[in-house]
C-alpha cells in the first residue's frame, strides 16, 4: 500500500497545477467564459501542447499512457481552478470510449486530431426522461440501406454545442427500459437532421439539447457491436462520474481554504469569527467531508483501473455518493460561513460553491448512486 505518486505523476500534477495557478485566476476565468463556446480554443490548444489531452490514451494511440490516477490528478487540479474546457466531455467520456471501442477507422479519424486539440467530442446519452440511467434509451436507430436512421432527443449534453462529433446512444432493438438493444454511433454535429441548442449552465459550463430528426449515418458510424452498448455506456458514465468526483475534490479543497481564510480575517463583536466554537466545529466538519470525498475518489481510481466490474461499480458509486453529500455540505456551509459575501457573483467562493453543488446533478446524484450501491451490495448468507 502506497499513496505516494510516481515521479511522472508528480510532474503531471505540477504541470496542471502551474497552468491553473498562472492562467486560471478569477478574472482570467471570467474573461474565458465570455467566449461563445464558454471556453477559449487558445486554452484548449495549450492543454494539447502540454500533452494533457492525451493523458488517458495509450502510447500506441498517441497518448500519454495514463490511467485513472492520472485523470484524477488532472481533474483535481482543474477543480481548483474551475476549469471551463470540455475535458470530461471530449477526453474522459467520449474520447476514451472511441479509444477503447472505436473501429480502427474511427480511431484513426478521431484520436489524432482529438489529442492535438483540433477536434472536439461530446457524449450524448442523457434523455429528457432517463435521469441518470445507463440503459433507459428511447432514441431510435432504424436500419436502412447502408446504415441507420437516428431519431430522438438527447438532453443536457455536456459541451454538446462545441463538439464537432457526437457519440450518441440509440436503440437498434428492444424497448426503452431494456439493457439489450442499445447501440452507440459517432455522428457529425453538422449532419443533416441534427439540431443543437446550446446554453450556459449555472456553474459556468456549457451544455446542449441535441435533437436528431431522421439523421442518416453509414454502417461505419456504429461504435462497437450493434445492440450491445450497455456495458460500454455504464463504463463511460462511471468514468465521467469519477472525473467530476476528482474535480469536486479540487473545488472542495479551495472552498474549504477560502472559508478558513475568511474565518481568520472576518471580525465581528471585535474578534475573528473563527474564534467562535460553533463556527470552528462547522469548519472541522467541512474538512472531514473533504477528506472522506478524497478517500472515496482515490479508491474509485484504483477500482476503475482493475478488472472487477462489481468492485468498480461499488467504488464509483461510493465516491459519487460521498461527493454528492459531502460536496453539498461544503458548498452550503462555505456560503453560510461567509455570510452575505458568499452569495455574490463578484466573489470567487460563490463560483466554487455552485460547481461543487451542481456536480451532484451530473453522472448520477447521491441518491442514484446509493441505489446502485445498494443493488450491488454484498450480503453474506450467514455468519
Amino acid at each position, binding site marked *: 500500500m502506497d499513496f505516494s505518486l510516481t515521479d511522472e505523476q508528480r510532474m503531471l500534477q505540477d504541470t496542471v497545477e502551474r497552468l491553473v495557478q498562472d492562467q486560471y485566476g478569477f478574472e482570467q476565468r471570467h474573461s474565458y467564459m465570455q467566449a461563445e463556446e464558454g471556453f477559449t480554443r487558445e486554452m484548449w490548444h495549450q492543454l494539447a501542447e502540454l500533452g494533457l489531452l492525451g493523458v488517458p490514451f495509450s502510447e500506441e494511440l498517441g497518448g500519454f499512457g495514463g490511467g485513472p490516477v492520472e485523470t484524477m490528478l488532472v481533474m483535481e487540479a482543474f477543480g481548483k481552478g474551475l476549469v471551463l474546457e470540455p475535458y470530461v466531455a471530449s477526453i474522459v467520456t467520449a474520447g476514451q470510449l472511441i479509444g477503447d471501442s472505436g473501429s480502427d477507422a474511427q480511431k484513426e479519424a478521431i484520436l489524432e486530431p482529438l489529442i492535438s486539440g483540433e477536434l472536439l467530442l461530446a457524449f450524448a446519452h442523457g434523455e429528457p426522461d432517463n435521469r441518470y440511467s445507463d440503459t433507459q434509451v428511447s432514441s431510435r436507430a432504424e436500419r436502412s440501406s447502408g446504415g441507420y436512421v437516428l431519431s430522438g432527443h438527447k438532453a443536457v449534453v455536456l459541451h454538446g454545442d462545441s463538439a464537432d462529433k457526437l457519440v450518441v446512444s440509440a436503440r437498434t432493438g428492444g424497448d426503452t427500459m431494456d439493457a439489450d438493444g442499445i447501440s452507440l454511433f459517432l455522428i457529425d454535429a453538422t449532419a443533416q437532421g441534427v439540431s443543437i441548442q446550446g446554453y450556459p449552465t449555472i456553474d459556468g459550463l456549457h451544455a446542449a439539447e441535441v435533437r436528431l430528426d431522421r439523421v442518416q449515418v453509414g454502417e461505419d458510424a456504429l461504435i462497437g457491436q450493434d445492440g450491445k452498448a450497455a456495458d460500454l455506456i455504464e463504463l463511460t458514465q462511471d468514468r465521467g462520474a469519477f472525473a467530476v468526483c476528482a474535480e469536486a475534490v479540487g473545488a472542495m479543497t479551495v472552498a474549504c481554504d477560502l472559508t478558513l481564510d475568511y474565518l481568520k480575517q472576518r471580525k465581528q463583536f471585535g474578534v475573528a469569527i473563527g474564534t467562535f466554537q460553533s463556527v470552528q466545529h462547522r*469548519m*472541522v466538519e467541512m*474538512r472531514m467531508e473533504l477528506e472522506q470525498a478524497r478517500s472515496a475518489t482515490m479508491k474509485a481510481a*484504483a477500482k476503475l483501473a482493475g478488472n472487477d466490474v462489481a468492485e468498480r461499480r461499488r467504488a464509483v458509486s461510493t465516491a459519487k455518493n460521498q461527493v454528492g453529500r459531502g460536496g453539498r455540505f461544503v458548498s452550503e456551509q462555505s456560503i453560510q460561513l461567509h455570510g452575505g459575501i458568499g452569495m455574490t457573483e463578484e466573489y470567487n467562493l460563490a463560483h466554487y460553491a455552485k460547481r461543487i453543488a451542481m456536480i451532484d446533478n451530473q453522472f448520477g446524484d447521491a441518491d442514484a448512486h446509493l441505489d446502485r450501491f445498494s443493488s450491488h451490495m454484498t450480503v453474506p448468507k450467514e455468519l
Partner: protein
Amino acid sequence: MDINFTPEEEAFRNDVRAFLNEKLPPALSDKVLNHKHLGKEEFVRWQKILYEKGWAAPGWPEKYGGPGWTPVQKSIFEEETALAGAPPLLPFGLAMVAPVIMNFGSEEQKQQFLPPILSADTWWCQGYSEPGAGSDLASLKTRAERQGDHYIVSGQKTWTTLAQHADWIFCLVRTDPQAKKQEGISFLLIDMNTPGISVRPIITLDGAHEVNEVFLDNVKVPVENLVGEENKGWTYAKFLLGHERSGIAGVGRGKMELRRLKDIASREKKNGRPLIEDPTFRSKVAQIEMELDALEMTDLRVIAAVQHGQAPGPEASMLKIKGTEIRQEIYHLIRQAVGPYALPFQPGALSEAGTDDAVAPDYALTAAATYFNNRKLTIFGGSNEIQKNIVSKMILGL
C-alpha cells in the same frame, strides 16, 4: 499510488487468520460476536494466548517484547482480530500506561511494570476523569501531598472502566495547587490494594457494570511510583494523545458490526420478506457501508503516512469522530432491524449463562442494550466535541 497490500502484508494477514482459526476459542468469539459481557478471566485468557505467540502488544517495540510490527501490520491485525470476534485488547495497560512508562519512567518502573502488563498478570485502570473534571480534565482536584518518601493522595476519580478488576491505577493528581492548572499535575502509579481506596460501581443505562467511581482517602503512595518529574504529568498525558492512536477509527470493529447488521437484517422479516430486501432499510445499510468504505481509505492514508515516517498527528481526531459516528449508526440500525423485540429487557441474554425464558433470539435481546452502551463512543477518549476543538486548533489554526 497503489491501494493494495503488498504480498508480504497479505501473507501476514493469512498468518493472523490461521492463528485466529487455531487459537481463538469459539466460545469466546461467540460471546464477542453476540455482544455478551466478558468477564476478567476472558480478557486475560485471550491476552495470554496472544502473549505466547508474542502478539500481546501490537504497538510495543521489540525491545520491550512487542512484535515490532509496521503500522500496516498493526492495522491488519486489528481488523482480522475484530472480524474474527476476538475480545478487544484493553488499552489501559498496554496502550496507555505502558508507553508513558517506556518514555518517561525510571529503569526500575520499566522492569517492575512492563513485563506483567505484557503477560496480562496485572490489570490496569485509568484515573483521569473526576466528577468536576471531564472534558476540562486539567481542572482535576485529587490531591497528592508529599510527606517524606510518600505521597498522600485524596480525591475521587470517576468513569473508571473495569476498575473492579484492577490491580493498579494510573492517576493524574494535583501536586502543586498554586501553579496554573496544567502545571501542577503529576502522573502517579497506585496499587489498588493500598488502604484508603474504595471502588463503587456505576451502573450504566444498559444495566451494565463497566465503569466505577474510585475514592482515594489518604492513600499512601511511595514516591518511586511517580512517573517522570513532579508537576509534569500533563505533558505525559498529552503525549498519550499524540501516541499510538492507530485503530482509533475502529474500522475492523465497524466491518464486523456491519456484517452482523446484514446477517440480522437477512433473518428479520418485513412483509414476509427478509428485511435486507426492503428498499428503505437496505439503502440505510448501503449508506453506512459506503461511509465505512471511505473511512477505511482515510484510515489507510493516515496509516501509510505513519509508515512513511510522518507523525499521526491530529488527523487521528477526524478518524475518531467519523469512526464513532459510523459505529453508532450501525448499532442504531441493528436496534431498528429487530423491531419490537428490541424492547424486552432480559439481562441474562447478555451474560454467558444466557436466559432460559428468552422471548427472542440473543441478537434481538442485546440490540437495545448494545445501542445504549455505545453512546459512550462519542463521549470517551476525548468527546467528539473536544476532538473538533483539537482539529480546529491543531490543523486549522483557529
